[in-house]
């Protein structure tokens, strides 16, 4: 049905319709108008939606960089621990040899070999520690990207919350904001629905008899 048809039909309908029907129609029309208006005048929502593919690639970049860094660190720690373990066992071995026969331990070259081995091992450990230090460069690289994605997400969240509150029934509107913000809690201060640390988890479970 077109608007022209409505213009013809309206007077005919008006003759038999109650004022409440017109009031209801007016209300629905106003809500529709407001909602469409909101959609049309929300440039931030449009801009945020346009930025989503870019945000996705930025987040993938962060995930890759942080994952690579974590693996590099863990590999280096594993190797450094192995070196450390080797030095410990060699130290115990040479100490026993020294206690048993000091002259033989020195004369056989075992002590000198041990000193050389320790020096080589500490050099390797130092390189592993340097690798661990260098792996932290992801923080600088991803920090800037995180800031941009956070700004984009914040804009998108603001726009969507406004839209949801606008469209939701009154009694549900107040619940919208808290419902969409679930996930890891960054700022637990002042909130009663989350725990701030492991101690609070234990207290809560204890209060329930667990």
């Amino acid at each position, binding site marked *: 049905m077109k608007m022209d048809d409505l213009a013809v039909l309206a007077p005919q309908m008006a003759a038999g319709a109650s004022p409440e029907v017109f009031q209801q129609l007016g209300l629905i029309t106003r809500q529709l108008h407001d909602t469409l208006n909101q959609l049309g005048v929300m440039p931030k929502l449009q801009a945020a939606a346009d930025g989503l593919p870019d945000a996705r690639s930025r987040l993938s970049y962060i995930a890759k960089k942080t*994952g690579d860094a*974590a*693996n590099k660190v*863990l590999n280096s*720690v594993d190797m450094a621990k192995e070196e450390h373990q080797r030095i410990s066992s060699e130290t115990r071995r040479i100490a026993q040899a020294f206690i048993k026969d000091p002259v033989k331990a020195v004369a056989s070259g075992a002590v000198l070999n041990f000193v050389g081995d320790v020096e080589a091992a500490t050099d390797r450990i130092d390189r592993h520690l340097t690798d661990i230090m260098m792996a932290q460069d992801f923080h600088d690289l991803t920090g800037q990207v995180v800031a941009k994605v956070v700004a984009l997400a914040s804009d998108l969240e603001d726009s969507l919350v406004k839209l949801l509150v606008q469209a939701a029934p009154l009694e549900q509107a107040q619940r919208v904001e808290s419902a969409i913000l*679930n*996930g*890891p*809690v960054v700022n*637990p201060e002042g909130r009663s*629905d*989350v*725990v*701030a*640390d*492991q101690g609070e*988890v234990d207290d*809560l*479970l204890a209060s*329930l008899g*667990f």
Partner: protein
Amino acid sequence: MSNPTDMKFLIVDDFSTMRRIVRGLLKEIGYHNAEEAEDGAIALTMLKNAKFDFVVSDINMPVMNGFELLSAVKADDTLKHLPVLMVTAEARKEDIVRAAKDGAAGYIVKPFTKATLEEKVQKIMQKLAATA
């Protein structure tokens, strides 16, 4: 089981880094026998196909999350005896209460320390020993 350190752990987390960290910490605590799964569905299949003694699970995971895994384990007569320790970034009280009511043996919030993991694992071990 003669030696508790022979216990076999299943670490469930969608982040390989976290699986590796938990595995490393368990090793330092004295538990060297551990396998990994990247979501609840894979974990459930592994649990049904091999014998495990302890499950350490994240909550937010794709395919099957930690709550779904916990429910599936507790609903299975052959698996329900398994202790499931939740290790998660979810700090909401309703999640902690839900985990406890669904049968989780413990709940650790990330970030956590080696001491916390050790304390919770030992506590669960002691409970298991007491009920055995």
